[in-house]
């Protein structure tokens, strides 16, 4: 598990604490009173204004993109991608609030699911399925749609999300409230509790369930250095270890879009058997990261991690080695 800095090192209160509290309580209450289509219409109108106001957020996302992509040509100006990212982030926050009131048949009608037969093939093997994805805005809503379409998908998630952007009060009171809110909308989850998560995932796999794990954050004890956009970074290999040990097939999943229409893409199942050594583990990991690179290049405006401490999430190998030397 990634270790967080002690709360004592944070200020008592930050502006984000208040903003998060407003989102969880007054905004949620207000959204309950409004029809879903009115809420979504309002958000689409307010988003450009929000993007203009959040100059600080736009700057940090632009910096994070430069940090990862360097001078890579994305086919569009970075500023446009940043504005689109902010719009989608706001839309996702509202989609979370209205998720359980959405008209599922309308959402299904406006969405496409590509490669669903890959998921069916993997499920037919009877060993459960590990669905591997990155942190994209549309994940939560896509899993909601899949559950409503008869696919029992479980998320592995931190029960109480720590936020370095919040102060002490925010982490004490607002983050747990947000965690409870997420638990209600995620519906079926395995808490990423150290010492337990592997066993709980195994239990779900034995029930032939689908377990979703992300590969773009260091939520695991074992991480290996891998090249990512030309720089060596640390990536978790827990999902590979679980696949090797349990024989569960791995299926890559990409989710894009929002409640006006989703696009979910599943790829061919991959199976591994036997615990791999360091070189083989890297070879098994490589195709997953290459695909993550391709997804990020194609849909940079959909990747949540830009605003969530990229350096902390995707640690650089040299930082890790420096930390290990210091301890």
């Amino acid at each position, binding site marked *: 598990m990634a270790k967080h800095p002690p709360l004592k090192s944070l200020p008592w209160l930050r502006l984000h604490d208040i903003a998060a509290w407003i989102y969880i309580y007054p905004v949620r209450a207000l959204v309950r009173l409004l029809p879903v289509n009115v809420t979504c219409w309002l958000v689409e109108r307010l988003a450009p204004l929000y993007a203009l106001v959040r100059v600080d957020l736009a700057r940090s996302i632009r910096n994070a993109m430069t940090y990862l992509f360097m001078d890579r040509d994305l086919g569009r100006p970075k500023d446009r991608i940043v504005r689109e990212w902010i719009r989608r982030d706001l839309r996702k926050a509202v989609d979370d609030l209205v998720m359980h009131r959405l008209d599922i048949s309308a959402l299904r009608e406006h969405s496409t699911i590509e490669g669903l037969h890959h998921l069916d093939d993997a499920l037919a093997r009877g060993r459960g399925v590990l669905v591997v994805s990155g942190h994209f805005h549309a994940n939560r809503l896509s899993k909601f749609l899949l559950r409503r379409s008869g696919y029992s998908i479980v998320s592995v998630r931190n029960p109480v999300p720590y936020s370095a952007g919040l102060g002490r009060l925010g982490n004490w009171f607002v983050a747990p409230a947000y965690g409870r809110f997420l638990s209600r909308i995620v519906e079926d989850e395995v808490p990423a509790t150290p*010492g337990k998560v592997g066993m709980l995932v195994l239990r779900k796999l034995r029930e032939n369930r689908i377990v979703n794990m992300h590969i773009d954050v260091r939520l695991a004890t074992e991480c290996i250095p891998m090249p990512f956009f030309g720089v060596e970074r640390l990536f978790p290999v827990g999902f590979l270890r679980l696949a090797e040990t349990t024989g569960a097939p791995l299926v890559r999943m990409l989710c894009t879009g929002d409640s006006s229409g989703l696009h979910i893409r599943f790829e061919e199942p991959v199976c591994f058997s036997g615990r791999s050594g360091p070189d083989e583990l890297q070879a098994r990991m490589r195709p997953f990261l290459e695909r993550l690179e391709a997804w990020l290049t194609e849909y940079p405006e959909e990747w949540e991690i830009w605003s969530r401490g990229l350096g902390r999430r995707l640690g650089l190998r040299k930082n890790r080695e420096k930390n290990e030397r210091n301890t």
Partner: protein
Amino acid sequence: MSETRETILNMVCEQVGLDEEASKTLRSRGRLDELTAVDSLLMVDLVISLEERFGIRFEPADIDPELVGDISRLADYVDKAVRES
């Protein structure tokens, strides 16, 4: 000490590569979940290894970190599963 408990302890020591002191602590206290060297993936490894070694299958409801973390309970469970298989 039951034979199964001893077998499980040996499997754990071998899989985790415990040093002498940790191995002694594990043998006296019988708590796998107290060892920092043992993470949940190693517990998964242990469950699969036990299934292969004893020809049993853990039911989903029995895949419980509390059960696997306690060597004595785990040995009782394995013995019972072997008798019933």
